[in-house]
């Protein structure tokens, strides 16, 4: 758990990560708030808050008497949201760091090409 950000935000992100990674497929049940709380060793109210954020965002929904489920289309929506943030969260810091080290953009692009097989 990161010290500087609210825990419920981090819980929401962890669940989002699992959905994006495919560990929580759409229309499957997610663990209960208490299970999240016990697993991450956090307060159940906080875990509940994180889950509620995702419910408000339409990523999760509640089936009365059963529990929380991943909504259809959740993965797509999350991927789209993350793509929007990719530029600010990953690219911008990359460039700042590269500038610090005197690496210009062309060199950075070369590095990107070398990296990975895809």
């Amino acid at each position, binding site marked *: 758990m990161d*010290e500087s950000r609210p825990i419920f935000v981090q819980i929401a992100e962890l669940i989002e990560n699992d959905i994006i990674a495919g560990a929580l497929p759409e229309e499957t049940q997610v663990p209960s708030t208490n299970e999240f709380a*016990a697993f991450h060793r956090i307060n159940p109210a*906080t875990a509940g808050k994180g889950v509620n954020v995702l419910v408000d965002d339409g990523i999760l929904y509640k089936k009365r008497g059963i529990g929380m489920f991943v909504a259809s289309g959740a993965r797509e929506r999350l991927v789209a949201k993350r793509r929007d943030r990719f530029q600010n969260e990953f690219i911008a810091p990359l460039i700042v760091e590269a500038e610090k080290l005197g690496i210009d953009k062309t060199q950075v692009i070369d590095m990107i090409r070398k990296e990975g097989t895809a």
Partner: protein
Amino acid sequence: MSAVVEASHLTRRFGDTTAVDDISFSVQKNTIHGLLGRNGAGKTTLMQLLTGQDFATRGEIRVFGENPVENSGVLKNVCFIKESQRYPDEFKPRHVFTSAPWFFPNWDAAFADRLIADFRLPLNRRIKKLSRGQLSAIGVIVGLASRAPLTFFDEPYLGLDAVARQIFYDRLLEDYGDHPRTVILSTHLIDEVSNLLEHVLVIDEGKLLIDEDAESLRGSATTVVGTRQGVDAFVADREVLHRDGIGGLASVTVGRLSPQDRARAAEMGLELSPVSLQQLVVRLTGSTQTETALEQSA
């Protein structure tokens, strides 16, 4: 949400010393509160006042809406576990667990049995002969299994090793999830419990310094690290909580930073590191004046 505990201008003086100094706060139902502060800050005295074990010099207390002093209607729903609990001579742990249900209407014996196994507590050894950790375990087990709607834990984990402490936190969370109740926990080991807490009360020298949601405290302070020039420029118009440095490097703790502030810091080449709850409490309650050699970022 209703307030389970309400303290209003609570003061407790012992001769010349003021152990609790004009404290006012309220505790909401079914939350886990942390009561943090240094040794001798007044945490134990405060809890003793709230449970009717000690008497206030001034001020008012309401627990479940009534004054708790000598009030059996209120007190039967309260469980106060303190590390200095004395046991009758010749008592063994099994006597404690046999008698606890007579006083705590919600006592869960099956839960107590599981906890006794978890903490490996010898039921038939005289309490005088138990180790510090085993003694603490008795208190912890009573506090958990009592399921008292209002439960206080006053540093009950002295002597518990790290494994046993983790067992305590885990069982507390589990049980709290299934059977919510109001828990007030005082501790030095802030980082261990900071993720469990919903609300934080920090006491120093009898006064209430902080009374806030744990979540809003997170990120309420940040440490800015970089060249002295850069850091000084960045923190120029901000409240500084703590200054530290070595050589040409400065490390200054300031208040909450907005995303724009963070971006600006990044541009200036400054590093931002988070301030944990423990560090925050240490900063606020440590000696504020001089920066001694011992004053390092925790």
